[in-house]
């Protein structure tokens, strides 16, 4: 059929019955039982595809989605000074910067701390959903999307980084103290969970339907 994105279906490791160890790169013949194989050389678990990749991705994504709410509602930074205590959420910080005229900074924080985690979650949901549906739609683009998601993951920790540095530096006793709020933990958890979700997702599963379609036919 001509519907396949790639005319010539190349040989895949799975089709050849081979598995590669992720740790040391040793090539193994796929066990007939498939699951629970270990590398003969280094003992790392072996599998044709990442084990339960969709289930793990879904689990971590759901956890990230849940924690995304407190991350944005609870204060990330608590400033105690002689004039009183002030709690800031991420959005209140962005709004403050926007009102005081630091538009580039406000945009940067809004993008890095609010948009990136949200877009990452959406992208992963799309990837996991299409992989589960064994969709063959825009496989190549989805693969590129996965690369971007994996790359950008670690860069949304700016807020956590700023809060961490401030909390360490601004400790003037009664005069002024900055400490991290509960929102910071939730936000950090969201970022870490989305990174883990991206890690758990196996991009090869995006291509399986294509190969299956090619080989099964």
């Amino acid at each position: 059929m001509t519907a396949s994105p790639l005319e010539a279906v190349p040989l895949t490791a799975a089709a050849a019955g081979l598995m590669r160890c992720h740790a040391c790169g040793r090539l193994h013949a796929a066990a007939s039982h498939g699951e629970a194989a270990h590398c003969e050389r280094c003992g790392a678990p072996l599998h044709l595809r990442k084990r339960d990749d969709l289930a793990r991705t879904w689990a971590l994504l759901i956890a990230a989605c849940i924690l995304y709410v407190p991350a944005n509602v609870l204060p990330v930074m608590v400033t105690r000074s002689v004039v009183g205590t002030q709690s800031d959420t991420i959005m209140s910080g962005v709004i403050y910067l926007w009102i005081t005229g630091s538009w580039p900074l406000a945009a940067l924080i809004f993008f890095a701390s609010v948009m990136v985690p949200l877009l990452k979650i959406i992208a992963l949901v799309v990837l996991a959903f299409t992989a589960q549906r064994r969709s063959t739609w825009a496989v190549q683009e989805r693969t590129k999307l996965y690369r971007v998601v994996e790359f950008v993951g670690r860069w949304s920790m700016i807020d956590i980084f700023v809060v961490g540095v401030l909390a360490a530096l601004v400790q003037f006793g009664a005069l002024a103290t900055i400490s991290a709020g509960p929102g910071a933990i939730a936000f950090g958890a969201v970022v870490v969970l989305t990174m883990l979700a991206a890690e758990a997702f196996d991009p090869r599963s995006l291509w399986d339907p294509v190969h299956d379609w090619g080989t099964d036919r």
Partner: protein
Amino acid sequence: MSAPDPDRVPEAVVQKKRRSLPLVWIVPLVAALIGIFLGVRAYLERGAMIEISFQTGDGLEAGKTKIKYKDVEVGVVQSVALADKGAGVVASAEIAKPAAYLLRDDTRFWVVRPRISGGSVSGLGTLLAGSYLALDPGKIEKERRKFVGLELPPVVTLDVPGTRYVLRAEDAGSLDVAAPIYFRRVQVGQVVSFELDKDGRGVDVKIFVKAPYDQYVTANTRFWNASGFDVNIDTSGVRIDTQSVVSLLVGGIAFQTPEEPALPTRATENAAFRLYADRGSALKNPDYLSEDFVFVFHEPVRGLSVGSPVEFRGIEVGEVTGIFAEFDPVSNVFTSPVEARFYPERLRKHLRPGGVLPRDVMTNTRARIAFLIEHGLRAQLRTSNLLTGARYIALDVFPQAAGKLKVDASRKPFDVPTVAGGLPELEASINRIAAKIEKLPLESISADARQALQSLDRTLKGAEQLVGRIDRELTPEARATLEGARRSLAAMEVTLANDAPLQLGLRSTLDDMSRAADSLRALVDYLERHPESLIRGKREDVTP
């Protein structure tokens, strides 16, 4: 190692499958639990929403203004909106759940701003941190959600233990809300408020005395106005009495309980007391016994007023309670009956026992006074202050009046006979002098004086004319004469000058005369020595 053998691909090790559900599902489970926990907690801790209305929104900021109780944050103002038709503002606030029990029926709210009043400065912290709402929880066990905020902070918060009293005063004086209350110069309370009586005849001052000190307020405690300072000038010198500098500024109230008839019963809440004007009148011995007397004066009573003292030989024994004027149609004269209250207790201590006084004189006040009247006691108006003309009623014993009256001690009203005072007599004589002065023919005197002045005027005019004529007629003559005299003097000056010919001639004449005298002297000398030469003639060789 031998060369890689593509056929030798080892079989993977197989392990038993251990779990059915991947462990990873614990992660969203935990996240969900956390989320549910946070949600439930937020729901449970959702505070009580209240509405407080104020006259202005000064210092109220939505989302920022905090509500504090005992300086602990219990809530935050969520929104500030205009009330219906702009009659004030309504602040909606959320009070944290643990503090919601503070929202009772009589709970009060007010805005804390920096404030300087009287002797105290408060709310300085709000200069930096902005104003906040303070809360004073009420005591009535009834919840409430809509409040009316106070415009001024309350003087005494409800949680301070103590007792409130009401003082009845003539006027508010210099008292202010929050004015201090002193007990033995220790500040023990504050004035909470004051308001007019319902009938407008006085001022009710509400005060608050703090807990350990309210035990000293008993039923017979005297309160007095300690505002400003009292200056007492008497024979012992000058004494200045004041409580504290603060009371100079905002006024103050002091109280004390008299030592003697001790009533140890503590005053109840909201008990009413009289507020005396000063310490002296507050601590004066109370007079329990009194007698009303009437003094009928036949002279004007100007200078006497209600409250003027009645003194017996300088001891104050009573006070005037009323002054009237009466017309006696029988004798066609006006009299001035003066009612006075007499405190016999003040005299009893000074009555020495013994003697042969009738028995009821010792026990019955009226009998005693009647006895004294029979022995010459009379009332007299005297001047106590020459500057102001204030007068008092003096009781004294006039021996010349003794035995002239028989007094019935039981008559009513009980009047004490009077004698004319010393000053009215003086006044009368001054009046007589004034009348004489009045009789003087002042008008004719002044007419004479006017005539004299007119003739003087005429004389002066004549003199002026004379002077004018002298000026006109005599002056040119005098000038010519003077010029002639000047010319004669000049000529005389020329004649008498050093180089004048008369002078020179005279001088040479005098020289000749002196030479002639010298020759004559030589001749006489020669003749003395040589008298013979008169006969013989002068000898040539005689001279050496």
